[in-house]
């Protein structure tokens, strides 16, 4: 048994006696297979995105790409960043920053488009 293995074993022994925080407890119920399924979906969407570069989808190209981008974004933050299971406080904190960025920069782009 190496030094590292011994350390791991010691840490594991003390952990059983400590309380698990609720957020960590929630994560522990998600199986690795679920994460792999999400990654497969993300890979398929990425392949579809790249396909639009080679296949002419006409006026649907931009809406399709934006829809797929949002789908990937939501999947990662909900499943990999655990917002689906975590406290709504974290969701509100992140969405506040995201919403502020979207509103401010859409305003800036509109200003340059219509008044510049």
């Amino acid at each position, binding site marked *: 048994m190496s*030094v*590292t*293995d*011994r*350390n*791991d074993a*010691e*840490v*594991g022994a*003390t*952990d059983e006696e*400590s309380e698990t*925080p609720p*957020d*960590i407890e929630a*994560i*522990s119920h*998600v199986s*690795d297979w679920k*994460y*792999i399924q*999400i*990654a497969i979906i*993300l*890979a398929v969407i*990425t392949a579809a*995105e*790249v396909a*639009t*570069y080679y296949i002419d989808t006409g006026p649907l*190209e*931009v809406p399709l*790409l*934006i829809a*797929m*981008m949002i789908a*990937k*974004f939501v999947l*990662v*933050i909900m*499943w*990999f*960043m*655990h917002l689906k299971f975590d*406290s709504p*406080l*974290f969701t509100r*904190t*992140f*969405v*506040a*920053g*995201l919403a*502020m*960025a979207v509103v*401010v*920069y859409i305003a*800036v*782009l509109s200003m*340059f488009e219509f008044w510049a």
Partner: protein
Amino acid sequence: MADTATHDVTLGEAFAAEVGSGHHATNTGYTNEKLGMWVFLGSECLLFGGLITTYLLYQDRAVEGPLPKDLYDIPFTSVSSFVLLMSSLTMVLAVSSQVQGDLRRARTWLVGTALLGATFIAGQVYEFTSFVKEGMGYTTNLAASAFYTLTGFHGVHVTVGIIMLASLVALSASGRLGQDRAETVEIVGLYWHFVDVVWILIFTIVYLIT
């Protein structure tokens, strides 16, 4: 007098409990470190939003030299994007293993994540080098400056993430990152996934929507 002594003992015990657990008690029930990371990520939305907006405004502005979109190698960037996306899978598997107490497997996934991140950075260095060879330097035109600033800032974030992952691996290997510190791995994971979602936006908005 007796009340004061009892009160002191209670505070002392509470302090000892907090130090022992490595966390301060909060009225939200969640640690300040985790909430702090989410606040930081919310503020990062504004940083990258500004950089993406600047690129959108200047993407066609060039008095001389090629535009970035004239030089894109979509198959190459698609592979890079796929590599970064899969690094999010290895990262979440590292968090999962740490939570379950399988520390050796967690280390393996952390090393895998760092290697995938390094592969992405190597791809970015190759891309930048080939663009400069094609005549598009940082100051060639406004579009090039906006492109390099946006993707360069993202690259710096990935590099910082790799350093954090390497630190976690070193801590874990020395036995100072046990199952009780799974949240530390999760917080680094939050940063790493955020870097991934930013690239999801950049890949679509900058590379694919022309």
